[in-house]
């Protein structure tokens, strides 16, 4: 789509910026990358009343043009980048009318960059209700910009905002807010002169942010560094002076234009809710109840749609294999691509539910209270109050949980959270655990109440949490902090969730997951399919030939003959050859080559284990028949010793391997996507494999 005008949305967090963005652009939005900067860029298109098309860019919410997190550094980079043409034609600054003072700081900074500005005074209904009266005409006159009162939540004032955008001036007409040159006159003058810049605030920002702004050349950046030395420019002192000056301007402005009652109505309600939700006892009880609910919802609500998706794919596979002529291409399509696709799609319900619930918790303001309550505990182990949510979500699936770590501003805290989340026992491990536990742990009760199998499963879940926390604690000492950690965080007023935003988040995250993780999963499952379906040389042909001899065809039923052929082909396939190659490595863990194949194929996704076991032990029917897989595994014996393969030691060793190993292509893909550097998923894969091998080895040696 061709845009006639580029509009950037700028505002504090919790001001309804994303709601406004969704209203303006509808589903007509896309997420891309800012050139040269590894932060997502959300853009969309909006038809203006005069027929022109506006490209809307949603910049990350920030309290100030001075960045505190990587996300926030985008704001100035975009507004400054004349070279790459990122700079917008118009900026819409969104202000929360019920909390103007702090919101106006960002406005005054943006306004002084002298890019045309329009103010959207959001939540005007909330401020009206709270008894705040704003003289909008005088406010607009004092700022020198159009001010449009809106309520993004109630979709009011949007048409007026659109026409204000359409008819906005092409030159910046806003009043100066503070005397910028007075902050650091010498360096501002010199930068203006040397870099041919006419805006003093822009020059001052370059003095502050020249190291992070991509559009400056190294020589220019070095030159600014030199000027800083020469004029002994101290960035933080200058920033402090600027902030004080700006708040003086804001206080004067608000004194003339806004009348406020003593306590805001909304806030006193919020206070009463907080008394319960952050209470010493009830606070934690409610928090754990909510966690239980999320956990339950992810499992129970997703069960039905997940089966539906699986059935749909099974139906699709059968239709294709029936209608198309048989051959390797159809095999690849059915057993490779479609099987891989269904492995991706089946996670959509869990992802959608998890994200819906998380976005409700965020939208209402509860999430910041959880952070507030948990920060002290989490900090002790190298995490952050905000790490609680991804870790809990990890019980369902690490993929959406890792995506949700974006809320963590502190780089080190976020990286540690990403690194340990895959250790939490996700739902894909559940079928593996239940199969193996049922195999070796007797189904009886101890102390009347506790079922042994249930206890074993609970122990696996506890182990996952303990290991995640332990690894986080170790990483706290390994990773170097890039910045000082802060916990200066707004506790927003409680609000009803915006259901449309919840819907958008569900849609957005599911789409990202399918597109990003999907590519990897499909690729891996195609490779696996090839490895399982082909063998070196003409081994497969020889097997077919051998079993077409009359001694086999006469003595065996066609069914059992097929099973024997399939299992012999598997042994001689590339996957089987590979299994035999790695056997010496996994032997100390108690695994044979067949388990080796299951382990290797499980690196695509853990739940592949049951299916592979089913194929290897030539069970007919589908992998869901746990009973029959279990029976086959139970009766499986080692041909050399005659002893059963799946002893207690082997089963627990296997469970340890699945507990620690990074056997999930989607997680690897999403960690890469979130960190934008292959080193992170590689390091994660390495440390988890080492842990898995060590834990399996110890458990096997002890139980043998």
């Amino acid at each position, binding site marked *: 789509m061709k845009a006639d005008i580029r509009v950037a949305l700028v505002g504090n967090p919790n001001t309804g910026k994303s709601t406004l963005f969704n209203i303006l652009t509808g589903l007509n939005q896309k997420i891309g990358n800012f050139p040269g900067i590894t932060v997502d860029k959300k853009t969309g298109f909006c038809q203006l009343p005069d027929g022109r098309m506006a490209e809307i860019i949603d910049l990350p919410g920030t309290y100030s043009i001075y960045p505190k997190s990587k996300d926030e550094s985008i704001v100035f980079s975009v507004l400054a980048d004349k070279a790459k043409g990122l700079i917008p034609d118009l900026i819409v600054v969104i202000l929360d009318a019920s909390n103007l*003072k702090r919101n106006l700081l960002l406005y005054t900074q943006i306004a002084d960059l002298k890019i045309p500005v329009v103010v959207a005074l959001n939540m005007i209904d909330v401020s009206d209700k709270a008894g705040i009266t704003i003289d909008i005409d005088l406010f607009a006159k004092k700022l020198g910009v159009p001010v449009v009162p809106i309520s993004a939540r109630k979709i009011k004032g949007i048409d007026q905002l659109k026409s204000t955008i359409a008819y906005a001036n092409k030159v910046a007409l806003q009043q100066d807010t503070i005397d910028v040159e007075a902050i650091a006159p010498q360096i501002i003058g010199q930068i203006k002169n040397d870099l041919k810049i006419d805006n003093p605030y822009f020059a001052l920002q370059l003095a502050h942010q020249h190291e992070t702004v991509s559009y400056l050349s190294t020589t220019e950046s070095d030159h600014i560094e030199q000027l800083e030395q020469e004029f002994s420019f101290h960035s933080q*002192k200058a920033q*402090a002076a600027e902030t004080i000056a700006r*708040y003086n301007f804001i206080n004067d402005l608000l004194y003339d234009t806004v009348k406020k009652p003593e306590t805001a109505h909304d806030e006193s309600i919020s206070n009463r809710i907080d008394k319960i939700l952050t209470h010493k006892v009830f606070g934690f009880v409610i928090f754990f109840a909510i966690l239980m609910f999320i956990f339950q919802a992810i499992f129970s609500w997703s069960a039905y749609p997940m089966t539906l998706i699986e059935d749909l794919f099974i139906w699709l596979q059968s239709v294709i294999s029936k209608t198309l002529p048989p051959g390797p291409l159809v095999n690849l399509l059915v057993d490779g691509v479609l099987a891989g696709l269904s492995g991706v799609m089946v996670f959509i319900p869990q992802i959608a539910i998890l994200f819906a619930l998380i976005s409700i918790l965020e939208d209402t303001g509860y999430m910041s209270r959880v952070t*507030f*309550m948990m920060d002290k505990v989490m900090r002790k182990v190298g995490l952050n109050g905000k790490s609680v949510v991804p870790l809990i979500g990890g019980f369902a699936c690490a993929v959406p949980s890792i995506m949700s770590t974006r809320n963590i501003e502190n780089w080190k805290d976020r990286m540690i959270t990403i690194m340990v989340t895959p250790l939490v026992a996700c739902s894909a491990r559940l079928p593996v655990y239940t199969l193996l536990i049922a195999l070796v742990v007797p189904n009886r009760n101890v102390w009347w109440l506790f079922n042994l199998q249930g206890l074993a499963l609970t122990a696996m879940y506890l182990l996952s949490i303990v290991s995640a926390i332990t690894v986080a604690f170790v990483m706290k000492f390994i990773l170097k902090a890039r910045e000082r950690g802060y916990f*200066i*965080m707004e*506790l927003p007023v409680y609000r009803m969730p915006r259901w449309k935003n919840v819907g958008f988040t569900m849609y957005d995250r599911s789409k990202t997951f399918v597109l990003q993780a999907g590519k990897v999963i499909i690729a891996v499952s195609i490779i696996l399919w090839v490895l399982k379906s082909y063998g070196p040389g003409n081994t497969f042909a020889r097997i077919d030939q051998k079993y077409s001899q009359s001694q086999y065809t006469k003595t065996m039923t066609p069914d059992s003959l097929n099973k024997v052929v399939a299992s012999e082909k598997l042994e001689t396939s590339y996957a089987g050859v590979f299994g035999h190659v790695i056997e010496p490595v996994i032997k100390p863990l108690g695994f044979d080559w067949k388990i080796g194949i299951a382990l290797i194929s499980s690196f695509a996704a853990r739940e592949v284990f049951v299916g592979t076991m089913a194929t290897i032990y030539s069970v007919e029917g589908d992998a869901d028949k746990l009973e029959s897989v279990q029976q086959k595994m139970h009766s499986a014996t080692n041909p050399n010793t005659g002893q059963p393969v799946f002893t207690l030691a082997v089963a627990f060793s296997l469970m340890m391997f699945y507990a620690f190993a990074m056997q999930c292509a989607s997680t690897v893909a999403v960690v890469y996507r979130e960190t934008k550097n292959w080193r992170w998923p590689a390091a994660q894969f390495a440390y988890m494999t080492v842990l898995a091998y060590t834990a399996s080895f110890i458990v096997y040696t002890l139980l043998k």
Partner: protein
Amino acid sequence: MKLSQLEVGETGIVKEFTDLEMSVKLMEMGCLPGEEIRISRIAPLGDPIAIHVSGYQLSLRKFEASTIILQ
């Protein structure tokens, strides 16, 4: 007196800061000299704390609060 020494419900007026880097962040969030701060609540485990300032609620760690000197 430091902000971290106030009890829940007590108020104080910001005088100055002992940590420049922290002060820059705090001032951006509306904790400026001359501004009144009320302690809204303390987290169940004793840290961080929530304060009311500039018309909204802000949470910060006790250590961060100890860099704010009151009048």
